[in-house]
């Protein structure tokens, strides 16, 4: 038996593994995102938000005189590939790594950026991300440990519920949200009468709706991904669920509304970031985004956009490009729209990398998300 193929493969392979260095007059900030696969919508929104910010900044001369260089790498929505891609970009000494959005991918990649001492700006919302003592990770939106207290307050004060049923998707996103939510319910003396898990990609929700109906709770908290949310809402309407359906950003998003049709009307919940916010800066951003990319962005677009401006602000504060000093400077920093208009809404980053901002209570009315109330920052 001959194995010349083995040698040839290895030779050609190693040629493919060598890579090039980057120019000195730019700052290298690679983006590792879900550009295909199940996370493609989130990843592409996040990417486009960042691209808009980068174009605006580069048009004005860049950060501290250096233009931003942001090559895009696709994780294909898989944690293993995300890890490999982050490993790849770390070989080229980036200033900051951007993304991923999926919590599972973030958790995998975080170890590498921490080892390398490179700050990582992520879109993931799982609580665990900022609970690992990693000084280099920074969120672009609320972690579940920030959004859940707000929702819990609404359940207690707005809906005035004494009992609640929880429906969640059994992945890191859903489980993390469910764990945080249950904790918040316990501390507010609200009883959880049903705790039902569902599978990602599940199509048949009749059993779950039956269980929700049987639980007869004052409110039902729904924490699923977009398609599953739509399917659940349709089934819930079909079987005539009476309790109010409460959700978090995803449940009130346009995608769910489009897929669920009028089954989405009446859904209420907490919305962290939305282009429907009654804030002029956000509305102007939404206009610019729509003009540049020809579609309406979701909350991931806002995450990406404000994230880049956050990096700009911190860097200008330091006066130089220093990855390790970035981590030190960014903890505890507050960025206001007055100092940096690109941040759109005032935001503070704490010692764990969590971000705190105003947020909103929304309701789906006639097929559109309507903002009913603005909630203040948790901290301050």
């Amino acid at each position, binding site marked *: *038996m*001959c*194995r*010349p*193929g*083995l*040698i040839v*493969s*290895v*030779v*050609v*392979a*190693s040629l*493919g*593994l*060598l*890579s090039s260095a980057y120019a000195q007059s730019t700052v290298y900030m690679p983006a590792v995102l879900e*550009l*295909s*696969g199940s996370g493609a919508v989130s990843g592409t929104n996040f990417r486009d938000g960042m691209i808009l910010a980068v174009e605006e900044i580069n048009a004005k001369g860049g950060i501290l005189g250096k233009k931003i260089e942001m090559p895009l790498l*696709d994780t*294909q929505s898989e*944690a*293993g*590939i995300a*890890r*490999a891609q982050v*490993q*790849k970009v*770390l*070989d080229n000494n980036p200033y900051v790594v951007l993304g991923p959005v999926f919590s*599972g991918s973030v*958790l*995998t990649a975080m*170890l590498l950026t921490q080892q390398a001492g490179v700050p990582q700006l992520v879109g993931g919302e799982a609580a*665990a991300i900022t609970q*690992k003592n990693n000084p280099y990770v920074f969120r672009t939106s609320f972690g579940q440990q920030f959004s859940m207290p707000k929702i819990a307050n609404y359940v207690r004060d707005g809906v005035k519920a004494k009992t609640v049923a929880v429906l969640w998707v*059994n*992945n*890191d996103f859903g*489980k*993390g949200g469910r764990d945080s939510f249950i904790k918040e319910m316990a501390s507010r003396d609200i009883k959880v009468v049903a705790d039902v898990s569902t599978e990602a990609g599940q199509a048949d929700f009749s059993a779950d709706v039956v269980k929700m109906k049987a639980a007869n709770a004052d409110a039902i908290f729904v924490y699923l991904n977009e398609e599953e949310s739509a399917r659940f809402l349709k089934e819930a309407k079909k079987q005539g669920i009476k309790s109010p359906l409460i959700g978090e950003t995803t449940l009130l998003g346009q995608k769910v509304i489009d897929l669920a049709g009028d089954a989405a009307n009446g859904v209420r919940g907490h919305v962290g970031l939305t282009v429907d916010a009654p804030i002029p800066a956000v509305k102007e951003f939404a206009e610019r985004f729509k003009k540049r990319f020809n579609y309406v962005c979701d909350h991931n677009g806002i995450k990406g956009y404000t994230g880049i401006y956050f990096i700009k602000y911190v860097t200008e504060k330091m006066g130089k490009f220093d990855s390790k000093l970035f981590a030190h400077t960014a903890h505890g920093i507050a960025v206001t729209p007055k100092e940096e208009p690109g941040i759109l809404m005032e935001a503070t980053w704490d010692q764990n990398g969590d971000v705190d901002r105003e947020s909103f209570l929304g309701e789906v009315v006639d097929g559109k998300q309507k903002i009913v109330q603005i909630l203040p920052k948790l901290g301050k």
Partner: protein
Amino acid sequence: MNRLGIIVVGAAVIFAIAVPFFLKPFGIYLISMWAVLTIAAMGLNLTLGYAGQISLAQGAFVGIGAYTTALLIQAGWPYPIVFISAGLLCFAIGWGLGYPALRVQHHYLAFVTLAFTTLVFLVLRNEEWLTRGIYGISGIARPTLLGWSTANARDFYFFCLGALTVIAAATWWMLRSPWGRAFIALRENPIRALSLGLDTRRYTLMAFAIGSGLAGLSGALYAPLVQFIEPNSFALGLSFNLLLMVIVGGGGCFFGPFVGALVAVLLPEWMRITQSYYLMVYAAIVMLLLAFCPSGLLGLIERVIKATRGRRGPDGIAPNAERANP
């Protein structure tokens, strides 16, 4: 193995030892992954290539090995014991699964292993108290052996390469032993083997169990390589990937898994621009190979060489005479 084969393998070994010095950490990570996956693919090759049984559980066994390793390392057990435990545990589970499953007809093992993989995934995800559930286990330390720390990327690669060499040698020896010869006879002509008094089921079961054990060893290396494991990595996707690797490389060829794993690890890199199409191209390659050359890439190379050698007719041997396959 003929002289040319020995030269090729020798050159490959030298190459494998030299190459990490020319690569960045990402490249070293890739070739470490290649070494780890080759071990799992070798195991599957025993089951699929030699014994002719379709197993879709190889990924699950890698997962069981990886989780065992991660939990035991974090409980403070010394690595060599952990390594062997992972292999033995998977061997035992493989035996237990195969015993009843191989009683039934050929194609049913595929479905049983399919169900098993999904069940393993569910257990890994739901039993938080044991496996930390969906959040996975992070911060898995790389072992220190006799004072040599493998924490560095290059050191860990050599560790993987060493493990691969030892395991490959053991497997090669096993296949050359009387047991191994009987086993191969099984594949060539199962009815004849039966008539000679060989217990087909016994051999097939051993092959499946050993194959699963090898997957466990692969998992024991996978966990410290990636340093963060979660249930999703060991679902059906990995089993399919390993299956494709064995086929592409050449089922039933000893070095098939090496080539197959190399293609699987490097194909996404070669297709850098159209990276998300990689799996589609991979699947297409497999279908084409199966249609035209079921013995995989190695079989293809072999045929080409036979064709050219046949024309030239070296050593005065008539062009149509063929040498027996090892």
